[in-house]
Structure formats: structure tokens, C-alpha cells
């Protein structure tokens, strides 16, 4: 119940509201706002469903790509075939090459190995990093399947792999003529990703290296996806 102090004002307002045009236009405005307000949850929901739909079927694994566009991490590791010799970044080839992380304990590496031998025959320069492996097992592995690598270095502790952002074996890095990592392939190399991902990238990098210049960033971005 209202108090009686404001009687004259209220009477004036009552008159104003009683005017049908004012009353109905007020009502129409607030009704419209209300209806629109009630549509908002539906709109948000449709957006959510669209987002979920787009995500269906996409792989949800985390992909590490921190090594890209940076030089190969500094290392001082023994040569696998002669552990008395210590290799450093200077010993890496100065033309584009593939750096493959492998271990004799890794089943997928065994599957990948024949393809690496094929690549060696095609003249691709492969550098191997033997990751957390027993030297006897590693050398035996190379003796059995062949050695596709121009050289293999031994990462016993796994520190070098950690610096590369490795999550398992096998993984391969494409390094350009200046020692910058340009692509990171997780998992095995096979004919499929050789054609799709590696060959285009290597072509761009080889071009640049033969001309004695650094690769063009936009070309790299396009070819080395």
C-alpha cells in the first residue's frame, strides 16, 4: 500500500499512464525486449553446437612444435660408431638434412627402418640420434637392418631429446642449411608423409641452400607445414 504524501504527483502520473498510447507503447517496448532476451540462450546454444560440430573427428593430441624456427639445440654427444669421438653442432651437415630420433627398443622404428634405407638410396642425408639405448643393442640393430645414417650420435641420458621437445620415438626433424629446424614429424616417416610433407619442404630448403641464401620465410611456411 502506498503512502499518502505523494497524492498530487501520483494523480498526475496516473492520468499520464491512463493515456492509452503511452501505456501501450511502454508495454510493447518492454515485451519486445523481453522476447529478445529470451532468445539469447538459444543463440548461445546454437553457437556452442556449431563449435562442437566443427571439432568432431579432429585429432585431439597435443602437438609439440617448439623446436621449429630455432637452431638445433647445442649438444656434445659421442658418435655411436666410435664413442671416443665427441660430436657437436659443427659436425652437422651444412646442407639440409633429416634428423631421425630412433632406438632399438622402439617397435615403430623397426617398421620405419626399411623406408629410411630407401631414402638413403635416393640420396637423402640422414643423421640419426640414438635415444636412450644400450650401445650393444643399437649397433646390433644397425648391423641387422642396415645403417641409413651418415652419422649417428648417442643420446644416453635423453637430455638432447628433451631440448628438442621430444615425446617419444620415432620422430624426425628437417634441418636447413643454416642449422635451423624447419619441420617436426611425429611418428614414422613413410611414403605418404614423404610425398605430402617432407619433399615440398626439402625442395624449398635445398633451393635456398644451393643459392647460398637463407630460405624465404613465407615459402617455408607454405611448404613445411
Amino acid at each position, binding site marked *: 500500500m502506498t503512502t499518502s504524501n505523494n497524492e498530487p504527483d501520483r494523480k498526475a502520473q496516473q492520468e499520464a499512464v491512463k493515456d492509452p498510447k503511452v501505456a501501450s507503447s511502454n508495454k510493447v517496448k518492454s*515485451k519486445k525486449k*523481453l*522476447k529478445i*532476451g*529470451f*532468445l539469447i*540462450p*538459444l543463440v548461445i*546454444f*546454437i553457437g*556452442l*553446437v556449431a*563449435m*562442437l*560440430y*566443427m*571439432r*568432431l*573427428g*579432429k585429432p*585431439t*593430441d*597435443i*602437438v609439440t612444435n617448439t623446436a621449429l624456427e630455432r637452431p638445433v639445440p647445442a649438444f656434445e654427444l659421442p658418435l655411436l660408431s666410435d664413442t671416443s669421438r665427441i660430436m657437436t653442432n659443427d659436425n652437422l651437415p651444412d646442407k639440409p638434412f633429416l634428423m631421425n630420433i630412433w632406438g632399438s627398443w622402439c617397435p615403430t622404428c623397426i617398421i620405419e627402418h626399411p623406408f629410411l634405407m630407401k631414402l638413403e638410396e635416393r640420396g637423402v642425408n640422414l643423421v640419426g640420434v640414438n635415444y636412450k639405448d644400450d650401445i650393444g643393442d643399437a649397433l646390433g640393430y644397425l648391423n641387422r637392418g642396415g645403417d641409413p645414417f651418415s652419422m649417428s650420435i648417442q643420446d644416453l641420458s635423453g637430455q638432447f631429446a628433451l631440448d628438442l621437445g621430444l615425446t617419444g620415438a620415432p620422430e624426425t626433424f628437417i634441418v636447413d642449411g643454416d642449422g635451423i629446424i624447419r619441420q617436426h614429424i611425429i611418428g614414422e616417416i613413410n611414403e605418404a608423409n614423404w610425398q605430402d610433407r617432407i619433399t615440398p619442404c626439402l625442395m624449398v630448403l635445398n633451393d635456398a641452400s644451393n643459392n647460398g641464401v637463407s630460405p624465404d620465410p613465407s615459402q617455408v611456411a607454405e611448404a613445411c607445414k
Partner: protein
Amino acid sequence: MLITELGYFALLAAFILAILQVVLPTIGVMRDHVAWQRLAPSLAWAQFAAMITSFAALMAGFYYNDFSLVYVTQHSNTLLPWYYKLSATWGGHEGSLLLWMTIMATWCALVSYFSRGLPLSMRARVLVILAGVQMMMLAMLIFTSSPFDRTLPNLPVDGADLNPVLQDFGLIIHPPMLYMGYVGMVVPFAFCMAALWEGRLDAVWTRWSRPWALAAWGFLTVGIALGSWWAYYELGWGGWWFWDPVENASLMPWLAGTALLHSLAVTEKRGVFKAWTIMLAIFAFALSLLGTFLVRSGVITSVHSFAADPTRGLVILVILGIIVGGGLLMFAVRGWRLTVESQYRLISRESFLVINNVIILISTLVVLLGTLYPIIADAFNLGQVSVGPPYFNALFVPLTWLLLVAMGMGSNIRWKQDSRPLLGAGMVIAVSSLVLAAIITYFTSPSAMLNIGVTLAVSFWVLLWMVVDFKDKTKNAPSRLNGLRQLRLSYWGQQTAHIGVIIAVIGVAFTTTLSIERDVALGPNDSVNVQGYDFTVKDFSEVKGSNFDATQAEVTVSKDGQEVTTLYPEKRNYIISMMPMTEAAIDANLMRDVYVALGEPIAEDSNEWAFRIYVKPLIRWIWLGALIMAFGALLSMLDNRYRIKKTKTPAQIAAKKSGFATVADLDTSATKIGER
């Protein structure tokens, strides 16, 4: 095996019955044909019978080792103990979906039974909506994820064995409880959709749906608590909540359900916030379906998720889109008519319930954002970022504290307008809480003032307000005891549930701050002291289970020279699946858990093994608090003001005398008078 074939046919029958249950009563409602509307309850019961048959048949398939079923072959083995064979029924995607649908049929049958007092047109509409959901999910079950697919013409001689992590008591109870809650959220949804459909502008449907919301919420509370407890003793690293997407998928409907319960309280009592309540009912069920989608579609990474299958994901997404989209559309088209100018002052229970709803909704948003962020980041190219416990804890904990502050005062304030001298009382209570909290924190853990101190202060705030309210409510009674006895069950339910919340929150604070963990290498007769307890390894022995081999260690635990207990942690190797498992040994009591897990031998030839030892204070309070919350829900549910009686009660006689037809109408008109 013939019985499993029967199960498949029963499933098909249930699908057809669901279609009938949607179509026939709808026609009955549209044409005002009472006989066709009456078909709804009968169809609901028939569908229940069909689903139970189907589910029992699948269970029989497991029990009798029917390896002609692909599903049985994937999840069972002849060496599996019989109780795990039965619970393996819900150990995989298809079977757990069948459990989902069976529980849904159960809820429908219960709704059908308990809604006999409702007007027929409402009852029919509710059952139609329930059947609509069932129809779509049964279609998905039958056509994309049937547990009755056969391996024929091959017939494997044996199965692949249930995953050893699942071979545990937790599997027997956690999924059924959880699903009862998850699925139960469909009932309030159906009620409010039916009310909108009928074009009702009143709030009577809130009284009908409140006990159902309470039941679903209670089951969900128990289900989540069981999951947390199971993960704690099973996974071996002492964690009891990881904010994993699957865990969040169950927490979000729970949060929305909590907001719904409180909003229902306002709408039922005061007839206001109707639109809010409907929104929350839709929201709770939507989150339930969203959870089902997230867990089974492979869009998020989680250890708990079922096998990722984008096709299944698409089907669930379509179902989610239709049900929730339809609900929100109905809400947009008809919901706005329900808004009413609410008259309440700033200091009133309505205000506090608004604050409660806002805080809970923001908490739900935090969990939703964190869980969906990988998807959002993917859609808008925001870069890969992990969202985990540090994020959730940072935002969720302060929100909980805020909520408890509101809960303390809000649950004891009067409706519409409270003109008591609350500021004075509030100051006294606030100061007492802070002092009590400071004293206890000082003696337990001076270094963790913030976490434990604030939690205790907030808890005392709630408890002291509760005491004030008890005194207030019993002040007119002849004696205190008499007064307490006269209080309604729903009031006791409310206070019990709130006490449960406090207990759980205190448990969380103490465990997170004061747990101690040590990883040590121990051989026979070695000993280590952790947090005042001495752990001595007596010996190792070999143990054989029906489908595993294990090394068992005997560890005596003593405190100040007194022997407390002997624990037997095991390191198991499951034969068929060739998986190693650690079976932790726990000595639990109300004040602390002592937990020992056995790892691997330190070296090939060493007789020392790696042991993990925990001392966790007050961890049982977390799950105890959850159980008390669920008990509170049960008490509230049993309050007989929710009973829709057909015989005349004194109230009905009085109503009749005042010229109203039923008590419901008296309620309705009284509510309408309350709103101006």
C-alpha cells in the same frame, strides 16, 4: 545364445513403444481425447518392462559367457569373478548406454506411478516428453551402438578380460548411481516443458517437480562422491579430483541442479523466478546431455573417456541439438509470458537466492569454460594451452567461499522481507567465526592461514547462523525439544544438506593443505617415519587371484610405539590383459587416512621395493559430507507436502469450505495474490 537375442528384441520393442508413447498421447492431448491420453502411463510401464528385459538379457550374456556377442568378448573373460562379469555390463560404451536407457525407463515408470494425482493432460504431456527423449536415444543405441552385435560367424573361445582398473567394487556402484542422477535431470526438464506446452502460467508444476529434482540431485551427489573415492584408492597417486573433462561433465549438471533446487524453492513458495527456474531445468539436463556427448565423442582428451568415435559423437550432438534446442525454443516462444514483477525487499530470502543462483551459475561457467577451452582455442586459433587443476582451483575455491557466506545468512532469512536486527547479529557472528577459525588454524597449521583459516571462518559463519535460526524457530514452542520436533522434514533436509556442504568443504581444505606424501625404498625389516607414524615392512609374499598374480607386502603401522594396524599393499599382474596394477592398502578413520602403495623393485636384483606412503587428514570428510548432502535431499523429498493425495485431508476440507475445488487451486490463487 537365445536369451541375448531376446534382449535385442526387447530393445526393439522398447523403441517402438517409445514411438507410440510420443505419438498417441500427443494426438490425445491435441484432440482432447482422454482415452488416448490415458495410454501414456501404460506405455511407460510396458517400456520399462521391455528395457529391464533387455538389460537382464545382456547381463545374462555376461554371466553365461556368451562370446558370440562382440561386446561380451571385448569386456569379459571366463576367469573373471562373477560379480565383475555382471558389472562389466556397463564397463564399455554400448553397455553403459543400455544402462542409461534402462535407468531412464525406470524414472519414467516412477514418474508415471507417482503422478497419478496430477491432471491427466499434464501427466500425458510429461510422459510424452520423456518418451521423446527415450525414442531418440534408443534410436542411437539400436542403430549405432548396439551391445547385441554378434561376432558370428566367428565364435571366440574366450574374451579379452575387463580392464583391471575396472575390476573393482567401484565399478559395481559408481556408474549406476551416477546415471540415476544424470538421467534423473530429465524429469524436471519434462515437467517444465509440459507446463510450457500446456500454456500454464502458474507455478504449481514446481511443487510437482521438486521432489524429482531432489532425488536426481541426491543420486548425482552420491555418484560423484563414489567416483572420487574410487579414483582415490584405485589410481594410486592420492588424488581424489583432477578436474578431468569427464569428471567435470558430471560436476556441471550437479552445479546446475543445485541452482535448480534453490530456484524451485523460490518459485514454489513465492511464485516468482518462474522463467529462471525453467531456464535452470533446461540447463541442468542440457549439461547432462553435453556431458554424455563430451565423454563419448572424442572431442576432448581424457583418461576416462570411452573410445572416440566421431560418428557416435555426431549422433549424440544431433540429439543434444534437438532436445535442448527444442527446449530453448519453447522457452523463447512461451517463457517470456511467465515473467512477473517480483516484490521483495533487499534483505529477504529471495535476494539471497538470487545471489546463490548467480554464484553457482558463474561456478558452472568456470567449469564449462575450462573444460571446453581446447575446443574454443581450436575454433578461434588461440594456441594450445592446458587447463587443469591450477586454473579451476584458483577460480572455484573463492567462489565457493563466497557462496558459503551467502548460504550462512541466506538460508535463515525470512521470505519477502526480513526486518529483524540482522546487522548486529551478523557482526557478532562474523567476529566469533573469525576468532574460532583463527584459534583452530593456529593449532593445526599456522603456515596455511589462508586456505584453512578462511574455510573454517566461513564454516563457523554458517553453523552459527544455523544455531540462531534454530533458536528463532523454536522460541514459541513449549520446550526446545518440542519445537524441534515440530519443524518440517524439508527444513531438516535443508539444514542437513548445508551441514554436509560444510563438512565436505572442511575436508577439502584440510586434505589439500596438510597431506603428506613420501616415496621411499624399503626392504624387509626397513622402517620409515611419516608424520608421526612408523611404517615397517615385515615381509613380501606371492598371492594368486582368479585372474591375476601378485606380490604382497606386509607393512605394520604404529604410532608412538602403539601398533595401529597392518596393511597389505599388492602389486598385481593380470594374466589375460598383461597389465600391471597396484592395489593400495588404506587404513581409514574419520580423522585421517593412512595409505600405502607398492611399486616396483628398486633394481633387478634388489630386495628393496618402492613404496608410496600418504597420511591424509580429514579426507573421509569429503565423501561423508557428500553423503550427508544426499541424505538431506532425501529428508526434503519425504516431506509430505509433496504428496498429491486423492483422499480429503483437513486442508482440502478447509479449502472446499472457502470455495475452492482443490488444495492446488487454493495454492494457485494464494500465489497469485502474493504477486502484485
